[in-house]
């Protein structure tokens, strides 16, 4: 009765480990040290994230399993990890001065951020449903706390409570789904599930499995904020500190889509016909509701929350289409969305000022005159989110839609483009405020911290660069196909 630990392959969790260890380091240093060192912790976190990013780059192109078959090191995972790390880095950058300004500069923030990042990365590389679940929960629990970081602020803890209750509620469904898939196929390993389905043919398509799959849709749909599982999004986004809102919109969504994709495209691929129509409906509902309600928003964070719902809808269009092109398009979209969304939130953070007093869209009046560069950057992000060339947002949409058209979903794409038409209205409304209406009150001087400014400029440049010269990124996205072991 000999048994041994299966091959560990630390390389496969290398970037995760770097992030996790950085988290632990920050935790212990923060716990032990006093103020002066505390100022360095954000930079330490940043360094860890960047190191992990380098590791991701170094590992690019490898395909191997790790820890038995719990995780996999493939380009797909690495791509998402890169996006998540990028998001995390920007979040750290824009959080530094924000936290000081808000008087909430505690080292735990960075610890939790790193743990959340760790969870996201696990989600991206997991090839086992329980692994995904654990990654998701690691991420979620950290984010619950971060979302309530402004705990004295009534909106801060309210958002956290809602997120927690609904998150736990939806986790139950996700878990139920996992249980049913387990029951139906005898395994929660993605590869085994795929092989089970391939081996059984149509007889493997049991009601049990279909129900399980439905529950998984619900669970992931919640995390990516798809209608009708989206309702937490605006409230939580508004309540959370702005940097975390950005992080949630870009990072959490990316990670959730990573898992969503891996499960549905590569494990349950043979059931595509069964779920694509349901996703079709969800995609249409998500796009439409997100865009339509965004019009009526007055708070820019809420507006961006609805916009993130809408963008989830666009990505779902790609999910409906299925196939490798769609997968690549979603990857590219996630990257593009991360860039422009983080950029937009970086501006929101910078312009928000102390106590997030400038978060109404009305407050953006006159920004373009007072701070031309900041205004131009925000306008750029808005144009990109609206999907105007030559920005990343346009290329992303273009690629996703083309994948859907390729599969013959022309009418879905027509609905999608009409939706992005609606979105033009509210994104442009921000630019109207920025440029076309004078400030009604004195704009409090914005305190430009170097890290946040760097973040804004980086994201702006990235949005333009990735949009105007997308080829290499598209190529990366194409190479980033998941391998299941």
């Amino acid at each position, binding site marked *: 009765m000999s048994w041994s630990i299966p091959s560990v392959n630390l390389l496969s969790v290398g970037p995760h480990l770097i992030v996790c260890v950085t988290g632990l380091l920050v935790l212990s240093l923060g716990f032990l040290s006093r103020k002066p060192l505390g100022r360095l912790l954000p930079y330490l976190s940043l360094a860890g994230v960047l190191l992990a990013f380098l590791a991701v780059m170094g590992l690019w192109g490898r395909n191997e399993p790790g820890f038995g078959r719990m995780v996999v090191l493939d380009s797909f995972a690495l791509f998402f990890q890169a996006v998540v790390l990028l998001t995390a880095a920007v979040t750290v950058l824009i959080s530094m001065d924000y936290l000081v300004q808000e008087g909430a500069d505690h080292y735990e923030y960075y610890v939790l951020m790193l743990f959340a990042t760790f969870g996201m990365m696990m989600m991206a590389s997991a090839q086992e449903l329980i692994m995904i679940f654990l990654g998701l929960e690691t991420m979620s629990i950290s984010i619950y706390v971060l979302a309530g970081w402004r705990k004295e602020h009534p909106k801060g803890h309210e958002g956290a409570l809602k997120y927690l209750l609904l998150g736990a509620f*939806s986790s139950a469904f996700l878990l139920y789904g996992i249980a049913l898939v387990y029951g139906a196929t005898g395994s929660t390993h993605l590869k085994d599930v795929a092989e089970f389905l391939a081996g059984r043919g149509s007889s493997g398509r049991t009601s049990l499995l279909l129900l399980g799959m439905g529950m998984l849709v*619900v669970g992931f749909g919640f995390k990516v904020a798809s209608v009708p599982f989206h*309702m937490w999004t605006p409230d939580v986004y508004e309540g959370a500190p702005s940097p975390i809102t950005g992080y949630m919109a870009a990072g959490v969504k990316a990670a959730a889509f990573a898992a969503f994709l891996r499960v549905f495209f590569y494990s349950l691929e043979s059931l595509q016909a*069964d779920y694509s129509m349901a996703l079709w409906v969800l995609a249409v509902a998500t796009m439409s509701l997100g865009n*339509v309600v965004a*019009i*009526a*928003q007055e708070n820019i964070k809420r507006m961006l929350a609805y916009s993130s719902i809408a963008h989830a809808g666009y990505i779902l269009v790609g999910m409906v289409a299925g196939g490798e092109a769609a997968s690549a398009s979603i990857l590219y979209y996630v990257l593009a969305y991360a860039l422009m969304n983080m950029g937009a939130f970086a501006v929101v953070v910078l312009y928000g000022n102390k106590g997030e007093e400038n978060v109404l869209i009305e407050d953006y009046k006159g920004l373009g005159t007072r701070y031309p560069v900041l205004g131009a950057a925000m306008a750029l992000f808005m144009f990109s989110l609206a999907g105007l060339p030559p920005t990343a947002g346009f290329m992303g949409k273009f690629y996703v839609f083309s994948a859907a058209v390729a599969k013959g979903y022309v009418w879905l794409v027509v609905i999608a483009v009409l939706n992005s038409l609606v979105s033009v*209205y509210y994104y442009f409304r921000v630019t109207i405020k920025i440029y076309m209406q004078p400030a009604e009150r004195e704009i409090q001087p914005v305190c430009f911290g170097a890290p946040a400014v760097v973040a804004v400029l980086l994201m702006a440049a990235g949005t333009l660069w990735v949009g105007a010269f997308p080829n290499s990124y598209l190529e990366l996205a194409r190479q980033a196909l998941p391998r299941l072991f």
Partner: protein
Amino acid sequence: MIEHVWLIPLCPLVGFFIHGLLGRFTRPSVTGPIASGAIGVSFLVAFLVFLELLELPAEKRSVSVNVFTWMLSGSLQVPVGFLVDPLSSVMMMVVSGVGCIIHVYSIGYMHGEVGYKRYFTYLNLFVFAMLTLVSANNFLLMFVGWEGVGLCSYLLIGYYYEKKSAADAGKKAFVVNRVGDFGFILGMLLIFSAFGTLDYQEVFRRAPAELAMGGALVTAITLLLFVGATGKSAQLPLYTWLPDAMEGPTPVSALIHAATMVTAGVYMVARCNVLYAMAPVSMGAVAVVGALTAIFAASIGMTQFDIKRVLAYSTISQLGYMFLACGVGAWAAGIFHLMTHAFFKALLFMGAGSVMHALAGELDMRKMGSLRRHMPRTYATYLIGTLAIAGIFPFAGFFSKDEILFKAYTQGNIFLWLIGVTAAFMTSFYMFRTVFMTFHGESRMDPHVEHHVHESPPVMTVPLVILAVLSVVGGFVGIPLIPGGNAIGDFLAPVMKGQELLAGHAHGEHHSVGLELGLMGVSLLIALAGWWMARTFYVQQPDLPRRAAEGLGGLYRLVFNKYWVDELYDAIVVNPIVRISVWLWQVFDDGIIDWIANGFALVTGQAGAMLRRVQTGLVQNYALSILVGVLFVLGYMLLG
């Protein structure tokens, strides 16, 4: 010289550019001479061209000179090219000759006016356009001149632009002309679609062979072109702009609205005589419109008190004659009348201008009288003009008008002749009426105006005299009955190929000399009757007009108010369009279309605002939404 025919229109164009571009650098004193000189050179060239043409054998008198290709598109090829033939040669000489005289007259008349240079700029441009019109060798280039004169007429009528009525009149002239041009363009398009070219020579050469005699196509072409002619030549129903055009300076009226521009329609119909000859229906229409216009305008002329308006209606009436001639196939007679009319109508207008000049701009004949004592030269020349237009032997009008009436009788029918004769009577009446009211009888002038009355300077009277001479002798180029006496008719004959076509199937009856003499006598008597009646009314029994007007009552008012045609047009064309336009703009555009467009935005926005309320902030509702989603997804998975 013929190959340099392009110099003829070019000279005035150069003049135009000199005034237009360098106007601010030249002294006013040289403006007039330069402008007149430019036209003078044109006349000279035209005359040389004419002489050269005469040297050619009659059948070779048609030379086309292409300068450069203007439009080139597919099979469409339009050159800027000129045609020298008897018809255009006559027209060029008339236009440049009369134009030159009027330019000279204007130097005096317009002296000291504010926009003196502007005036000569426009005037040169006008002559350029008119010369282009008559010398072009294709329809499209003719159309350039055609519209060009319309434009200049707009500019010159609106010369006193600060006066609303002048500006209105200018616009009206242009717009009404455009209505006619609409027909012209369509006619041109139809010609191109039938022949694939717009070149006169080719069209007229091929027409007899390629078009059916009296066929729908040729009828349509000619009728459409005639619509253009009615606009330009102020025929029913598009004549309304011409009386208003008297708002312009008097020499303008003389030049544009008497001698040249309005004759463009006649010229065009004569030019297309081949086509018209093939379309009897159109011929009939031309004749009838011409005759009706002649009598219609003459009747209005009898009641007007504004001297220029009388002359304007007389112009319309005389143009009616010309069309009557064209309509019965006597194109040469029409052109003959065009020429003599150019002389005496220019003379009359300039005489009237001289009067106005003396009376500080007074136009109402009721405030004139006994001017002959003050302005003998003006009186004499004006009288000659009147005798000419009334058709008193041996003045120019007698010959040309008589030929038309004779042709109307022989080639048309008795009704046309009767109308023509009636109109001739009216013409004689109202023309002598102007003479008597203006120059004879008691003075009715304002005392302080009377004090300043003076004869005009030589620069104005010399042109009058020249024109008077022409009005006297102008008719002798078309003496009937004597063999070879009708020089102009013979000269124009090669162009009037339509006559041969008509002759081919006409009755071919030959009319006796006696008939012609008889008709001459009748028209002479009629003219004298007009003189007698005018004399009775305005010299012997000055209160008779009033009584007559009262006696006629409604009929008089109808005529006096010009049959309310302007008002009618306003009511049935202008106002409805304006009202519809306002409706389209305010209701359809801003209302319906925009409302739909904005409506989508509104509905979306409202939907957003409504759906927003679903987001109640209550976490249990959110959970409910999730549960509904669960139900949907599971339901779909199981049942879908």
